[in-house]
Structure formats: C-alpha cells, structure tokens
C-alpha cells in the first residue's frame, strides 16, 4: 500500500535550475518504443500479397486509423496526419497495456506523458489552423460570437489540453489504484486478473482511441 505515489526521480542541476526526470515513465516509454519498433520490423519483414499474421495486424492498424484521419480531416491533410494518428494510437494502447505485466507500469500513469502528448496535439492543431485559414481568420475565431468573449475562448482552448490529458491520466491512474487497493484488500486472490483485463486491456484501449480521436477532432475543428 505504501508504494502508492512513490516515484524515482533523477534531479540534475542545469544552468541554475534543477531538471527533474521521472525515471520510471521514461524507461517504460522506451520499452513501448522498442516493442512498437520490433513489431513494425517483424510485420513488414516478409511483405506478401497473402499476408502473415503480424502483417494482418499491422494492416488493420494502418487501415483503420488512416480512415479515421481521412474521414475527419479530409483527403489532403488526412493523408499527411495518418502516420501520426497511427503512431499515437499504437503508442498509447501499448502504454496502457504495459501495466498488466508484473513489475512494469504504464507510462501514461504519470501525468507528464499525456500532458506532453496533449500539448503536441494542441501545437499541431493551432499550427494547422494558422496554415490553412491564414492568421487573420484564425485570430477572428477567438472573437466570436462577441469580442469580449476572447478571454473565455482562450481559456476554453487551454482547457482542451487539460481535459484531454487528465482524461487519459485519470483513467489509467484510477484503474491502477483500484487494482492496487483491491489486490491489497483481497490478498491478491482471484480478482486482480479480471481487474487487469478490464482496466488495462479494455479501458486502456478505449482511452487510447478516445485520445487519438480527440487529437484528430481538435485539428479538424481548427482546420474547418
């Protein structure tokens, strides 16, 4: 029970500031990167008209997520952002699944990971908004419906980043706390595998999809 909220941190003084690194999420993210790279390599090693098992899974990911991106962003921008969509979903899904392996934990359990991805989505959305609509029209969106709504529109945009990242963080962190507490209360008998399947595999996949879809939708709101 005491390991709740414990975190290993590496603090490096840099130019008069302390740079803090949370070691566990970093290592766990690297494990996820490695797993995705290995999967990608194995999936395309023997490309064939009659696909192997891994190639089918890979094609499924690429096909479904490119369709999602093209549907909401249109043909041109959608094709450009399809790889991002695909990578984001695969990373988040594997991250959320990682917790079901003993001694590993989800990188998304640390708020920094979802927040970084949320800020990334925010930057891309606003960059695309300025690029597609032009700076003037982009700015005028903030002064709708009346000019004095500007501060609230601004807060609304920033709140999007907070809501997208807290949603993922809250679900994954909440799930892992529930698993920890219930395992502690029941002395790890019977229940934890089911909880892991529900919170890790099921909720994890749904939340990864929700995060990916919201990122795409935020871009499409700016573009249209």
């Amino acid at each position: 029970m005491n390991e709740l909220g414990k975190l290993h941190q590496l603090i490096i003084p840099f130019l008069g500031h302390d740079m803090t690194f949370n070691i566990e999420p970093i290592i766990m993210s690297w494990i996820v990167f490695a797993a995705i790279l290995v999967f990608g390599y194995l999936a395309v090693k023997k490309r064939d008209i009659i696909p192997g098992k891994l190639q089918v899974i890979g094609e499924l990911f690429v096909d479904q997520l490119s369709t999602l991106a093209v549907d909401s962003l249109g043909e041109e921008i959608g094709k450009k952002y399809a790889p991002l969509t695909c990578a984001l979903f695969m990373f988040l899904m594997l991250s959320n699944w990682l917790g079901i392996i003993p001694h590993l934990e989800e990188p998304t359990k640390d708020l920094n990971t979802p927040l970084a991805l949320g800020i990334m989505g925010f930057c891309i959305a606003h960059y695309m908004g300025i690029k597609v609509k032009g700076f003037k029209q982009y700015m005028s969106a903030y002064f709708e419906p009346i000019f004095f709504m500007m501060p609230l529109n601004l807060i609304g945009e920033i709140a999007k980043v907070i809501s997208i990242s807290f949603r993922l963080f809250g679900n994954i962190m909440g799930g892992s706390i529930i698993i920890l507490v219930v395992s502690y209360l029941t002395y790890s008998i019977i229940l934890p595998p089911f909880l892991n399947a529900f919170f890790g595999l099921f909720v994890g996949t749904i939340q990864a999809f929700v995060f990916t879809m919201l990122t795409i939708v935020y871009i499409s709101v700016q573009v249209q």
Partner: protein
Amino acid sequence: MVYDIEIWAKVAAFSGAGLAMGLGATGVAVGEGYTAGKANEGIARNPEMAGDIFKSMLVGQAVAESAAIFALVVAMILLFSSFTADSFITVIVLFSSGMCIGFGAIGSGIGSGFPAGEACLGMARQPEASTSLVTNMLIGSAVCQTPSIFALMTSFALLFSNFSQSPVSPTWAAVLGAGLASGIGAIGSGVGGGLVAGASCEGVARTPSTVSLLTKAMLLGQAVTQTTAIYGLLVGFILLFKTFPASDSIVPAMALLAAGLCMGIGAIGPGIGEGSTAGSAVKWIARNEDSSGVILRMMLVGQAVAESTGIYALVISLVLIFVV
C-alpha cells in the same frame, strides 16, 4: 466525556463510510432499475429472446454496479483501516473522501443504466444485432464509469496523502473543497455520458449497419461530456496538492471551500446538457447516416457552447483559489 482528536477521527471515518455507501448506492440502484424495466419491455415485445435479454441485462447491471463497488471499497477502508489522527485535518479528510466517492458514484450509476436498458430493448427489436449491441453497450458503460473513477482517485488521494506538515486553518477547507469539487462534479458527466451511450445503443438497434460510426460518435460525445468532470478533478487536485499559507482568518478557508463547491455544482449542468446534445446527435446519425459529418460538427459546437458555463465555474473557482 472528553472528545479527543482520535475519537473525532473515528466519528468522521464512520460518517464518511456511511455517506460513501449511502449516496453511492442511490444512483446505481436507479440505473439498474431502469435497465431491468427496459429488459421487461423487451421481453414483452419479443418473448423468444428472453434468455439473451436476461443475460445482457445481468452483464449491463454488473458494469453499472462497479460505481457502487468503488464506494464500497472506500467505505470498507474507512471502516476497517486504522488512521493515525495527527490533527483536525485528518478528521475532515476521512469525511471528505467518503463524501467524494459517494457523490461521484451517483452519476455513473444512473448513466450506465441507460445503455444497458437500451441494449436489452434493442435486442428484442433487432435480434440479429445482439452481438454488436452488447459490445457497444459494454464500451459505452465502461466509459460512463470514468467520472466515478475520477472521484475514486480523489478519494484515495485524500486518504493516502500526508497532511501532517500543512497548517490546519485553510487546509481543512481545501480538503473538504477537493472532495466536493471532484465528487459533485462527477454527477452530471456520469448521467450525460449515459444518455449518449443509451442513444447509441438505440441507434445500433435501429440501423445495425452503422455500428462502427455510432461507436465512434458515442465515444467522441462521451469524451466531450466528461470535460466538466475533469475540471472538477483538476480543481480537486489543485486544492489537494497546493500548499496554502497558514492563516487564522476564516476568509481564505471559506474561499477554498467555495472554490470546491463552485466547480462541483457548476459541473452538473454542463455534464447533463452536453450529454443530451450528444445523445440526440448520435440518435439522428443512426437515422441519417449520410449527414453524419455535419451532425458531428454541430454536436461539437453545441457542446462547446453548453460547456462555456462549466468554464465560467472553472474560472471563478481558480480565481477563488489563486487570487482571493
């Protein structure tokens, strides 16, 4: 009789446990009753499907029940763990964590009854779509649980944080406010998410071919509906983890309490409102698949406008925390 701090901590733990389970049972019971009612309606329409409908009713109710189980877990911890009460803050913390999960379980309990009920009725109307209905229902009601998971997180954060270094005077109000913001804030989003998921199950039963589109629209609608619950969680976490300077005056304490109340109550309306927006959108996508793009865009704009009141509440509670 002398009441020392240990006794008060026990009192707070017991009343917190009572609140957690009492409030937590309310919403879930309403939701499950709705499910069972719809299942009866479905069986009356199509008695041959009685077995399948019964099974999916039980599955749906089991998922809806998880909100009550969260409350039960917190109530058990409050009843059977021994807490070292080092100051008056512990007393408030125990009460607040029970109250938080109690309120937080109401919305998700009511909400996840809707998709289960609509799925049961849908199975009677469209037996071929049973599998996709059950899948859609499970996804919908799992996402409905999110607000109660947020409340549970705040509850546990309250229970297992160390407040022994914090000054008593404003901190007691901060921990009470955190429980209120996160707990009450979860009610609206839970109900709203349920409305969306229910509409989506109804839509799948009406037009089974649109199931993947409907699931996507449902997830999007629910995600946006949960935004205000996330604001509640955010305000709760700020109140929990920010250190406030000690003060003998009652004013800062009341400001923090008001911040929690403001965000909590302010999040109810937008949650339900956005849920009914997204519910109608999903319902009409099932009837008019070709216009799904424009319906979704309209839904997002409508939800953004409905959410602006939640943002007012967020702004005021942040002002109360950081400025006043």
